[in-house]
């Protein structure tokens, strides 16, 4: 308790620390938001809750790490991870996801849970259980007497994440495929009647999600560290964000992503770093409770 009060005291004594916490949180939150957006896409369009979301992120990280190990420049990792994970996502769709789309909730949860375990173990066998990271070797910018530090690598990562997010938004708004995806999300049957090949839309959506996650992972490996079994922590955060923001609400997903990043950093500062993820899970509980209370008023049949 004393420690908690002391930690809060530090925040008041050194206001600049608040800025640092928010900055750190927003930078990692941007990557959470990417993974969460992919999840919202798949969830909204195909009604598949992908528990392997975080493992796609980690797989993308390993693609980038592998490239760097073989002498390619690190920044190339992001587009390459995007493309490679697109392909892997497509294969996984054809093998697994296409068979569970029309099934009930538990079938898709079980299938993707199995997928998550498989992917983590395969990565463990291929790359070993060492923690890996890519060091870009860029310097770090310091402000406010060195209290605020912004590694240029992190800055590049966040910029790439924003560019990717912007690209996806424009794509969904203006391209033909984007329209088809949105139409399928609204009413798959009507979309089929109007001549949209929903099977193709599903495959495309899942591959796109996998590719977004892959690119996020390639950014994460440049800034933090990855390990074959770290996927679950990204999956949890993606679920928290999507549950909080709701499906099909892109600005909401981004805001929730950044917010959760910052809140986690505050939690870590005040309660100790061991409780960083507990903050995310607590938030999920609160959001679910809130939603439950909200829904009591308007009861409806569950699909």
């Amino acid at each position, binding site marked *: 308790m004393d*420690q908690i009060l002391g*930690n809060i005291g*530090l925040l008041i004594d*050194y206001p600049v*620390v608040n800025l*640092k*916490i928010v900055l*750190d949180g927003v930078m*990692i939150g941007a990557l959470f938001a990417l993974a969460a957006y992919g999840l919202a896409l798949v969830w909204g369009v195909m009604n598949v809750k992908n528990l392997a979301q975080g493992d796609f992120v980690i797989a993308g990280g390993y693609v980038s790490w592998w490239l760097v190990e073989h002498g390619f420049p690190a920044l190339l990792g992001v587009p390459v991870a995007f493309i490679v994970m697109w392909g892997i996502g497509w294969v996984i769709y054809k093998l697994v996801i296409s068979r569970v789309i029309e099934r009930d909730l538990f079938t898709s949860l079980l299938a993707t849970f199995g997928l998550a375990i498989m992917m983590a*173990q395969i990565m*463990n*066998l291929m790359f*070993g*259980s*060492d*923690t890996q*990271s890519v*060091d870009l070797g860029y310097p*770090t910018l*310091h402000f406010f007497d*060195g*209290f605020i*530090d912004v*590694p240029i690598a992190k800055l590049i990562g966040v910029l790439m994440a924003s560019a990717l997010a912007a690209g996806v938004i424009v794509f969904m708004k203006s391209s033909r495929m984007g329209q088809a995806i949105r139409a399928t999300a609204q009413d798959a049957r009507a979309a089929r009647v109007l001549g949209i090949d929903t099977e193709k839309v599903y495959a495309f959506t899942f591959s796109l999600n996998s590719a977004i996650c892959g690119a996020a992972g390639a950014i994460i490996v440049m800034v*933090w*560290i*990855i*390990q074959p*079994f*770290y996927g*679950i*922590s990204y999956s949890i955060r993606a679920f928290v964000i999507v549950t909080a923001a709701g499906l099909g609400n892109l600005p909401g997903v981004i805001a929730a992503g950044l917010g959760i990043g910052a809140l986690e*950093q505050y939690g*870590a*500062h005040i309660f*100790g*770093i*061991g409780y*960083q*993820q507990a903050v995310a899970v607590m938030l999920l509980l609160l959001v679910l409770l809130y939603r439950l209370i909200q829904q009591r008023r308007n009861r409806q049949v569950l699909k």
Partner: protein
Amino acid sequence: MKKLSMLSVLMAVFTLLFSQTSLAACGEIVIGSAISLTGKYATNGVHAQKGYEYAISKIKENGGVKIDGKCYNFKVIYYDDESKGDRAATLAERLISQDKVQYMLGPYSSGMTKAIAPVTEKYQIPMVEAEGASRSLFNKGYKYIFAVLSTSEQYLASTIGLAASVAEKNGKSPSSVKVAIAVENDPFSLDIRAGVLDDAEKFGMQIIIDEKLPRDLSDMSAILTKVKLLKPDLLVVSGHSKGAATAVRQISEQNVKVPLIAMTHCEATDVTGKFGDAANDIVCPTQWAETMSYEDPIFGTAANYESGFKKAYPEYKGRQVPYQTAQASAAVYVFKDAFERAGSMDKEKVRDALSATEMQTFYGNIKFSEAGNNIAKPMALRQIQDGRYNVVAPAEFASHELNWPRK
């Protein structure tokens, strides 16, 4: 009558064949080991397994294990415990009751060893282990477990003494030293914390940060911000590979200035290879260093062990051979020594011989206490100086001066 003679001829032929084979090749001593080949401990589990295998091949080259004039070679049955404690216990049970293994080599990590020890104890199977350092393994009255390594509360406790002597050298009292601790919430790291706290209390030092790291740590900027604000004189980090990797990366990114930083698992994480200069002047504890002056007739000196192992496993070229590997080899060597002194394959006799062990190996001196931990070998501290690991403490093994304060 005719039948009988036929039978005796056959028997004679068989005995001839049998005795011939036993003359030509050595016999086999089968040892069991459940070890982490997949899962979160796989990196070090594989390091340990290679240590076992290297020692077995070295002992074979040197004429095997001699019991009662006959020679034997070790053969290990490995099972993968997937880094899960319940799995490790099940596999130990299976090794003993199905594979009829009479002796065991330890798994990797204190947690797995804790899971297996009750099983080996129940079946009275002697186990020499090299990778479980938790002190809680040695206060339960176990009789069949023998550990060649120093126990975990000794790992970083010596950094407190080091910080105290630096303070004295600079004309300050050791009690003015402020300590920050960040350790993972697992048995091994908590022991390290207990050792550090004990020694800090002896000097009257103040603990200003004391935090537990989560299992899936990838960001510790919150702790490091506090470190920057509170300015401790000593920062102690223990969180397996991920803790070391995260700490080294973020300490350099956030430009954290602490005069003395100590952490575990530097070698296993390859911090010098991954982060280069960012790892400089960090102090790392080690069970063993190849520059130490121990030697034995099988492996030669510590330096001979290092070069021999790298020849056998070229993938370790250009990096440090982890101490996890060296101590695994030492465990096999302890078994050989005990079998030869016991002069028998009887597991009780082997246990008694193990408990009377007193020998020097390339890895250090080995003598077991009543509880089974090795009391003859101190921990050493090495500092990363220009990308090299140089022993800086304890004084009698130190090859280099401590760089202080860390820049």
